[in-house]
């Protein structure tokens, strides 16, 4: 591989030197940018913008541009500014580099500097690139810089290229909305292609949420069907980091009106909230009505809780209603457990799996472990009874191939006997207000407490709301 070191040694320093020289020139000539062109709404009555656009130089190229790009609204005469003349040569050097992190790094340095000094010339070079990841990355770097100074001009350029897609449009929209949400909403609504428009609309919701999540939420509620789901998800993700309880209240109201478009928002909320305050997150889930939104939230919560308390996490996972979803979530919990505390996992997974009378559920754990630790996986064969149940013509008629029937396996040699329990499925349905159902103490799921690490501190319930709500449930502490 002689070319790569050569390129790296020759081109990367050249780009960096060029960028450094550009920076020196920028400082030398005191290019302070067009502060007056920041959209007026950014300094409006809403809360201060999250990010203040750094003073940037702007405008027209200097003759080094491969092709001049006419940008609407740029007709005002601007004072002549001297821009580093080496950008095009540096850009071409970057273009000749082999794909990889070196090229990405050089491109990032180049575009950030060039777009700050002469966005239109940089834009012309970006547009001259062939379609592919290089152009996509160059476009992203350009827009990230340009949108902080003159998002309207950046939007006009992007629309004029004919190459606008979800990646570029959402990047610009998100940056724009953080500074001027009203202008950003007007722009994204006018994007003709839905596949490009919807992520851009979602980006506006997220960007707006950094300034005023309540206003952003009101806007999302009034979006047309089909656009709301992604926008709500993006909004909630940002909102939850600032105020998860408020975001949760909004999701609950939104879900009541749009149950089919709320699962992702609930999942995003719980993903953030459970990491910060799992007890509060679990209480919020318990307050949701049964249905797909609660299922989505519960599944994510189980995976999030796996690193804190695998026993509780498995209880949540096993209480999911949908068969493929439940089994996969159990496997996901086990995988997270394995990653977080391998010793605990090794000590307790045997009993955990033995408590799973569902063949497909055991198989999911088995397959997960096979990928992670084949040797340990083989040792677990004693516990993981993986023999597929004998086919039952009647049952098979209703079972989809690839979805093994949800029934107990025949007694496994060496594995604890599990009595097939016809009431198990109904018992797994979460009682209203509590994800952990009341169950027979002899129910194998009651063994879940044994899954916790053996030290006493680990047996402390990390999720108080679970124990408050799950009276006599299998996840109760001693």
């Amino acid at each position: 591989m002689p070319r790569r070191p050569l390129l790296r040694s020759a081109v990367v320093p050249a780009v960096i030197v060029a960028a450094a020289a550009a920076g020196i020139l920028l400082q030398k000539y005191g290019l302070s940018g067009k502060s007056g062109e920041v959209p007026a709404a950014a300094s409006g009555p809403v809360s201060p913008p999250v990010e203040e656009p750094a003073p940037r130089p702007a405008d027209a190229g200097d003759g080094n541009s491969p092709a001049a790009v006419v940008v609407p609204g740029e007709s005002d005469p601007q004072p002549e500014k001297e821009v580093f003349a080496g950008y095009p040569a540096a850009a071409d050097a970057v273009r000749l580099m082999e794909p990889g992190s070196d090229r990405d790094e050089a491109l990032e340095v180049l575009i950030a500097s060039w777009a700050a000094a002469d966005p239109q010339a940089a834009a012309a070079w970006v547009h001259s690139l062939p379609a592919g990841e290089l152009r996509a990355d160059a476009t992203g770097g350009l827009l990230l810089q340009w949108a902080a100074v003159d998002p309207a001009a950046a939007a006009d350029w992007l629309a004029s290229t004919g190459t606008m897609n979800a990646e570029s449009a959402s990047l610009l929209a998100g940056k724009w909305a953080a500074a001027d949400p009203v202008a950003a909403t007007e722009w994204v609504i006018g994007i003709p292609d839905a596949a490009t428009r919807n992520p851009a609309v979602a980006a506006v919701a997220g960007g707006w949420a950094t300034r005023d999540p309540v206003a952003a939420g009101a806007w999302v509620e009034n979006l047309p069907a089909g656009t709301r789901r992604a926008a709500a998800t993006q909004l909630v993700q940002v909102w939850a980091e600032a105020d998860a309880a408020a975001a949760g209240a909004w999701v609950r109201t939104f879900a009541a009106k749009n149950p089919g478009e709320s699962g992702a928002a609930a999942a995003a909320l719980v993903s953030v909230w459970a990491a910060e305050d799992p007890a509060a997150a679990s209480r919020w889930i318990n307050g949701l009505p049964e249905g797909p939104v609660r299922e989505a939230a519960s599944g994510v919560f189980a995976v999030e809780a796996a690193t804190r308390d695998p026993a509780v996490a498995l209880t949540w996972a096993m209480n999911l209603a949908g068969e493929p979803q439940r089994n996969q979530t159990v496997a996901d919990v086990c995988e997270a457990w394995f990653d977080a505390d391998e010793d605990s996992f090794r000590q307790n997974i045997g009993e955990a799996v033995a408590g799973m009378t569902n063949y497909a559920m055991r198989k999911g754990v088995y397959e997960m472990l096979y990928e992670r630790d084949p040797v340990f996986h083989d040792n677990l064969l004693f516990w993981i009874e993986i023999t597929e149940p004998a086919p039952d013509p009647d049952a098979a008629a209703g079972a989809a191939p690839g979805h093994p029937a949800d029934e107990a396996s025949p007694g496994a040699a060496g594995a604890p006997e599990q009595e097939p329990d016809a009431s198990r499925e109904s018992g797994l349905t979460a009682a209203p207000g509590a994800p952990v159902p009341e169950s027979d103490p002899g129910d194998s799921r009651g063994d879940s407490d044994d899954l916790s690490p053996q030290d006493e501190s680990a047996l402390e319930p990390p999720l108080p709301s679970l124990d408050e709500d799950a009276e006599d449930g299998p996840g109760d502490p001693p």
Partner: protein
Amino acid sequence: MFRLQPTTFSDMKCPIPSILFAAVLLSPAVVSAQTTPVPDTSGPEVTIDTASVVLSKNAIISGTATDTGSTTTIAGVREVLYQFEGQTKWRRATLTNRGGETTTWLIKTTIKGTRGKRIYFRAVDFANNESDVVGRRFRRGS
């Protein structure tokens, strides 16, 4: 299961041409065509809903996977996998409706710096058909 009844000609109470016609209809090829599920050969589709600019500390990247091409019982999205650029391992995203015709998927990761990272996604259905790989670079916007 299809069974010819009665099984002996002496028990038959209909003319032989009718029997022959019925036999043709119930020949293995015809029965197979009528009852064997059509193999699912169309892959699922995966879309990215999250904006390319990330404005929060921990990025939750989500999207949708859809598997509508199947007319058999072997349908539904089995998993969505993702890969960070420069790495070889494909990781499994969290699904909210595994096995459903449409499911939301999400991953949690950190995005640092304006360069961020490019992430690739693909979906797999229960017939092991795979979607096209879609990739996007996510950048930290603030």
